């Protein structure tokens, strides 16, 4: 028995357009479940899911937990932020311990790129990458795709510009791969210090100024500027960043009338995005949050076909 997605969801880079479409098509009807009086379906009854967060997260962890609970899975949260044990040892040990407790799926967030893959190679359970270092954040990419597809009907030929700290952003990477596979044109915009050197090899257009990017785009995905970046010398100051690259309502006057504004959160209002834009008519930021739960439910559902232990139990009582 194989899931059409395989055992794990590690990133969008290795998914096909068909697989991405399957996830989005599955997420669409699942949104209704969150509207019900009883927000729960019995699909993952008896499945145990461990949310293994080695890095702080509010939104993603809560979104995964809602998704898991609305599918009736049993969930355990393990937060190990601040652990001083080195990466390799921790993960191998953790993996062995988890397997010994008969779990079915692991949702992992980790500061090291490749951590989800590392875990997936060593355990039988399904592994879902909830963000690994600066590599990928596939469910965020998927919920962005779903949000845009809902507004546009299709992603083909649409122009999306990812703005800000692309260099450190796993959201950017998942978005670039996902959007390109779905036929969209992708651009990036930000200070050169926050763009990867080889960014044009990913087949994206590069804008050095925000104004032409805004005029070009059907949608802007505004990334969070991590405040640590200023201390590390990537940008001179937050105020200057806002003055040059901030998405403001003044600048949006030159955008197409129906431009969409996305932000993966949490926002730094007044830095990468102004409040009146974040709360304005172009913003689909709260749609993203709603869609996040549905996309994660879809991923859980589609991957759950590949749980050896559940399959064995079910085979006994057809």
């Amino acid at each position: 028995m194989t899931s059409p997605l395989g055992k794990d969801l590690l990133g969008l880079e290795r998914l096909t357009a068909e697989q991405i479409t399957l996830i989005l098509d599955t997420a669409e009807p699942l949104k209704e479940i969150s509207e019900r009086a009883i927000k729960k379906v019995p699909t993952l009854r008896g499945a145990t899911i461990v949310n293994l967060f080695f890095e702080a997260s509010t939104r993603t962890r809560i979104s995964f937990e809602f998704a898991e609970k609305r599918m009736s899975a049993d969930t355990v949260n393990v937060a190990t932020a601040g652990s001083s044990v080195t990466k390799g040892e921790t993960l191998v040990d953790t993996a062995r311990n988890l397997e010994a407790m008969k779990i079915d799926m692991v949702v992992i967030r980790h500061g090291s790129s490749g951590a989800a893959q590392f875990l997936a190679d060593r355990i039988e359970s399904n592994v879902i990458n909830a963000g690994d270092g600066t590599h990928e954040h596939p469910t965020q990419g998927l919920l962005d795709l779903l949000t845009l597809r809902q507004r546009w009907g299709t992603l083909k030929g649409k122009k999306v510009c990812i703005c800000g700290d692309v260099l450190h952003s796993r959201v950017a990477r998942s978005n670039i791969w996902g959007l390109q596979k779905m036929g969209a044109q992708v651009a990036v915009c930000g200070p050169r210090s926050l763009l990867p050197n080889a960014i044009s090899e990913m087949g994206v257009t590069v804008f050095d100024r925000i104004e032409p990017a805004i005029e070009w785009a059907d949608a802007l995905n505004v990334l969070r500027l991590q405040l640590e970046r200023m201390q590390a010398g990537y940008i001179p100051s937050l105020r200057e960043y806002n003055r040059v690259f901030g998405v403001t309502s003044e600048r949006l006057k030159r955008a197409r009338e129906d431009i969409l504004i996305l932000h993966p959160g949490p926002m730094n209002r007044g830095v990468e995005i102004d409040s009146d834009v974040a709360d304005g008519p172009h913003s689909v930021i709260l749609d993203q949050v709603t869609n996040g739960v549905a996309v994660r439910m879809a991923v859980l559902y589609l991957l759950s076909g590949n749980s050896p232990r559940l399959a064995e139990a079910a085979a006994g009582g057809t």
Partner: protein
Amino acid sequence: MSPSQSVVLTARALERTLSRMADEIVEQNDGTEGLILVGIQRRGVQVAQRLAAVIATREGVEVPRGALDITLYRDDLQTVGPRPVVGRTEIPLTIDGMTVVIVDDVLFTGRTVRAALNELADFGRPSRVRLAVVIDRGGRELPIQPDVVGKHVEAERGDRVDVFVQEIDGRDEVILDTGKRA
């Protein structure tokens, strides 16, 4: 059509059958008061639509309709291989205190209806739930019986009974296929 296939209902016969079923639904409910038709995805939804259309012409009343997709409530999800496609569930209004008629094309093991009853319970507490099916092919694995039946068909386990509807299949017809019989 292959020699193993036979027509159970032609388009005309299906139309007559649906009219009678609609009458029976209204008769059992003693009118259309508090009635809601809920079709099971996919073809049950079309059947419910047809029944509602008949009721609308006969009674002059638009009976509310809904759709249930029971995929997430199936009891065989872990054994069916690749995840089945999930369809839309739409229950337009509260079903508390209503008479819900679950509508499906073919009744076989009863497992789909079991799933539909469970899903319905997550939307509220109807005062009464009835079951209307176009074809009852026997072979029940659960204690579930229909209240309104279009036609009984003697089918063996490996046989197929397919209800085709214009909206999805481009034609109205019910076909029995006994091709897998030894």
